[in-house]
């Protein structure tokens, strides 16, 4: 896990967003009928990055367009809690971590699992399980 201190970060986000590239991936997922709305794809992307052992960057983010209120994205705080526990350095800024993880997750989906407009959820689930089985003490990176 990153040794970067959360205290050095800005305060956490209330609105969460995505870069243009990530929004393009979300558009493709939605247009191809894989997801009902962007929020479903965004949540899945965060889980995908975590599942593959990616670390969130907490440094000031690049160009992002706001997409959702954090309260709508994670109404039962489940994602927030998972991030806070898995990434102690992000304990005070879980939304900021979530935003970066979503960027990483969408890049993984695009590069590894989208062939044209095709995408297999079964393949993603299987790959994440395998990565964590092989991970041992530290999950491998996708």
């Amino acid at each position, binding site marked *: 896990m990153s040794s970067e201190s959360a205290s050095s970060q800005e305060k956490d986000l209330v609105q969460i967003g995505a870069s243009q590239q990530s929004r393009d991936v979300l558009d493709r997922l939605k247009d191809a*009928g*894989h*997801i*009902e709305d962007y929020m*479903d794809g965004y*949540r*899945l992307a*965060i*889980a*995908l990055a*975590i*599942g593959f*052992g990616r670390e969130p960057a907490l440094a000031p983010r690049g160009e992002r367009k706001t997409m959702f209120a954090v309260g709508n994205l994670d109404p039962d705080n*489940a*994602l927030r*809690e*998972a991030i806070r*526990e*898995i990434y102690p350095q992000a304990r005070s800024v879980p939304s900021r971590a979530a935003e970066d993880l979503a960027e990483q997750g969408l890049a993984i989906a695009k590069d590894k699992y989208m062939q044209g407009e095709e995408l*297999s*959820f*079964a393949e*993603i*689930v299987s790959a*994440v*399980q395998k*990565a*964590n*089985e092989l*991970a041992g*003490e530290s*999950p491998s990176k996708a």
Partner: protein
Amino acid sequence: MMLLKCVNIENFGPYYGKHSLTLKGDTDELVIIHGENMAGKTSFLNAIRWCLYGVAKDRSGGAIPTVQLINTGAVSEGSKRVSVEIMIVDRDADGDTDVHLRRQRQGKSGIANPTADKDFDEFLDVDVAGNVLPDDQFDDQVNNLMPERISRFFLFDGELLKEYEELVREDSSMHAREVKRAIEMILGVPAAQNGKTDLDELGAKAARAYNREAKKHADIHESAEAADRLRDEVETVAEEVKELERQRGITQKQLTDIREDLASQDHLADKAKTLGDLEDRLETLAVARKEKEQHRRELARDLWRDVLEPRLRHEVDKLEREREAIGKAMNEKSVLLQERAKQHKAIEEEKCATCGQDIPEDRKMKAKASLAGVEERLEQLEAMADGDRHDSLGATIKRMRDVAPAGVSTALVEIEGDLARNDTDRVKMQRRKVGVEDDLRGFDPDRIRKHEREKDGLLRLIGKHDDAIGRATDTLAEKRHDLREHQKKMQSRDEPTLNQLRIERDLYEGAGAIFEASISDLTDELRGRVEEEASSIFKSLTTDSSYAGLRINENYGLSIVANTGDIVPVRSAGAEQIVALSLIGALNRLAAKRGPVIMDTPFGRLDRSHRENIMRFVPTLADQVALLVHSGEIDPERDLGPVKGKISGEYRIVHVESTKSRLEKSSG
């Protein structure tokens, strides 16, 4: 004798572009054309039939519309032309004559999408010995070489078996009668019938001369007048009967054509139904796919929990291990604290609390040493036995466990499997649909209704013809009877000139009667010869030694006769094929006209032993034989042994893609 030299095909059926099959154009020629099912064997046979007679037939015997004859690939590239050219050698006692026939149909200019036959122009080329003839002589040339009626015995496919099976039935259909007429034509019976017609005409002329002379005599004048009148009336009524029969024949032909067309439309109607079914099934699959996709999206909404679960489990396991270690350290610390207190007490006490004696110094030293060990361990445990951390980890583990997996991944895997199967099924059905749509190009449902109405009208007309023929035939019989009565009266007059003319008349009429009887005798004899030849061929082909031969019926139908002399009542499809081949072989040996035999899938129903026998027989079947075979009936390595050295050429019909086949000369 007709011999094939070359067949050039362009855009016919599965043959995209130009293809050519070249033969020696000589006797003792055997050509094998290999092609798998659907490659285009029957289309090759149809191409020859179409060039000669302008009609290609489908499996149900219906005429295939021109639009369906043109190769689909060519059509998609904008071509509207189909063409077949045949080079023939017409061999007779005077030598060989080259005959070149070509039939081409081209969509009319100005019609972008020709569908009906009327949307096409037909071009016929006929060239005999290098002389180009007018196109209206095309049919005459074809009739001279191989009349359509007998072509079924030369251009042979599975259809003949069906027709042949009708021959052996007692209640033979009109179609069987047509086959019977074709057989008699191939055997030369019409020549004898023409002789009878000529004698009848001469007889009538002689009878008129006799009547004219008889009128000069007062006593028989009245009878001569009546006989003359009656003869005129007999001729008129006979002509009337002939005309009525001709008209009935035309009507019957129209009815047959319409029935054939309806039969072919029936086939297309079946295809249209298949297309409808396929469209329904595709629609069902599309709906099912939409529902599955929607369900998949709904499940994907919570999939993030399942994707997160392995990592959370991994983290929880790690935290639990840490918490367990802290718990152990805390327990050990608790035990050690008790031990430390005990050792402190031992060091600090001077006298034993039980016996009151002084505690020895060495025991105190031991307690001090033990206390040092306990202190050292306690110091080590100080960081590990963190109760707060223990409690905090418990809370963290609980929170992580609270992020429960949604359990949707199994259902998603199933749905994605269903969607993959749905895709495969849809692709398969889409391919079938394209094939059926190709078959249905040019299909016109209104035509069926129009033909049904025409059919009913023609059936009524045939009924009227039959009534009129019946009445005219009765009148004819009455008038002939009256004529004979008057002729009897006139015979009573004995006069040399009259006697001479009567003898002449009776001679022609007698000869006519003899010819009539002879035709009957001829057909009987020909039937006998067909039976003899066919039996001989059958015995060489069959592997069943309990069969004695074949017996022919009035329709030239052949039944198998067992050694016991009994007719074998039931025969297999394979036996049916051998009997049919025996008939064809016999007809070719006895035929007045000879030509090449081209057989499509001739071994389809046969076992290996029969296949070997027939292969041995094939080169003797006709002067020139071409076999269209597929690998299921002929294995070149195994089955061509009996004709090794007799094969003059081998071709292969290669199925390149769904709408394109290629005719290649085999290198072997």
